[in-house]
């Protein structure tokens, strides 16, 4: 417990302390003038910070929306139909999850370069979506399976078309599932904004928070209190979303991966 939380506590503590207290050796455990000063000052030190935050949200939102668009029909199909290669293709999806993006970087880099897409938002969104699709399909499939097929059949007998069934039965009943999968995709893409971001994008105006802050560590003496403050600001959104919805997310993920 201490091991897990200490880094966060210390990050927060450091963000409240004045810089000259931090830069004292040996380590001082106590500072008497704690303040949120660093949270104001960081916007000056990291002038692009608002832009990084916007980028992070923008990238995560677009990535998760695109992921959902691909995943909804596929998951529905896996949940409702029987067809050749159904199981083997599901296992292939699981296997894709095990490949790190690092293995694919070279060809992706070359392709993005040929199409002039390096240093754009697309360069980070396109590979991001690919790595979210597999888990998202598994998750959403299990939600679709919970909708009783009798409902659909009854509607079918009453003469409803497939589109009508989708609109009036499936869509409303699967909203909770869609929300959870959407949030999974959002948190997932928010968290993965590093590898693709440092590889495919050098332009500051497109950087998400993690790579933006990482770059900052490189070339200046780091103002650690502000760095920690900025990091916490970057962490906050996912943490808040997660705390509210952790029950559903954990239940969905564990059932998908352990029991199938």
């Amino acid at each position: 417990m201490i091991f897990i939380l200490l880094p966060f506590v210390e990050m927060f503590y450091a963000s409240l302390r004045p810089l000259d207290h931090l830069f004292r050796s040996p380590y001082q455990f106590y500072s008497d003038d704690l303040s949120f000063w660093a949270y104001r000052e960081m916007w000056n030190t990291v002038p692009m910070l608002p832009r990084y935050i916007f980028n992070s949200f923008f990238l995560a939102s677009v990535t998760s929306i695109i992921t959902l668009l691909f995943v909804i029909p596929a998951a529905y199909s896996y949940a409702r139909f029987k067809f050749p290669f159904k199981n083997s293709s599901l296992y292939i999806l699981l296997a894709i999850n095990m490949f790190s993006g690092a293995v694919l970087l070279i060809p992706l880099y070359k392709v993005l370069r040929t199409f002039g897409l390096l240093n754009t938002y697309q360069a980070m969104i396109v590979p991001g979506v690919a790595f979210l699709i597999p888990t998202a399909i598994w998750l959403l499939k299990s939600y679709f399976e919970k909708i009783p097929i009798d409902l659909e059949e009854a509607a079918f007998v009453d003469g409803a078309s497939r589109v009508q069934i989708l609109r009036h039965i499936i869509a409303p009943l699967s909203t909770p599932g869609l929300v959870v999968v959407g949030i999974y995709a959002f948190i997932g893409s928010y968290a993965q904004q590093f590898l693709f971001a440092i590889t495919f994008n050098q332009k500051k105006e497109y950087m998400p928070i993690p790579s933006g802050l990482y770059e900052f560590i490189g070339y200046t003496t780091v103002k650690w209190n502000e760095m920690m403050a900025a990091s916490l600001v970057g962490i906050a959104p996912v943490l808040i979303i997660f705390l509210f919805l952790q029950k559903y997310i954990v239940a969905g993920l564990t059932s998908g991966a352990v029991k199938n």
Partner: protein
Amino acid sequence: MNKKLKSYTTQTYIAYALIAPAALYIILIVAWPLLETIRLSFTNSSLAGEDYVGLENYQKMFSSKKFNGIVTRTFVWMFFSVSLKLIIGLIGAVLLNANLKGRSIFRVLVMPPWVVPIAIGMLGWLWLYNGYFGIIAGVGMRTGILDGPFGFLAYKQSAFISTIIADVWVGTPMVTVFFLAAMQGVPRDLYEAAYCDGASRWDRFFKITLPQITPVIITMSLLSAIWTFNSFEIIWILTEGGPRGSTTTLIIDTYKQALGNYKFGRGAARAVVVMILLMLFAGFYLALLARINKKISHE
């Protein structure tokens, strides 16, 4: 009824049509690059162009002492990191499963390292590991364990250990949550029966809990091994594979060759080795999963 009304073939067509967009996307962004990586590994591709060079990349790679060292290092790193994650995860799950006050709060509190972007978490660890001003060096100096400032990431051995600890920090919460979910799935009456027979706490753990959750432990060790093997951000942010290569794992080496030096051919050859190892892991995992599923459906 649905099935009677629509013929099997039209169903199959609809099913495939619905899957097609996702499938095409994955083929384009994952499958094709994998094949392209294999092709590139037989060339000397760089920003300047490429020529077919046969097995040269592989010959150079396997005859290099440095590369063999990297492979060994990767497995040592993985072994320590995965074992620690499993041990701490198991202990954590037992504690969280016990009837303690406030356990629901603790169950939520173990999770942050898992959800927080790894890269940002590592910025925090960079500060903790700071040799002059970080809290770990500070406590060490105060208690006299260290006799002066100590840069944890500046020396070969301590950097190796430090990156493992950070990796365990990131990976343990997930392992804990999965173990906990498995423990809660163990039927209650088993415990009640054992309790009536007068089994001690230890007995109940070793004779009921542990055997019952063994399938999950095995799957989690494999999954965790795969993720640890793939771990890139943690090492990259903390040390970039240094000092003097002491934390360079296969993934880091692949990245450095390919995108640090733009030696695409050499990088691709390393990526192929990574791929083959991952496929072995994945094969094990899927075979195991199929066996477990069979067992469950038989029962």
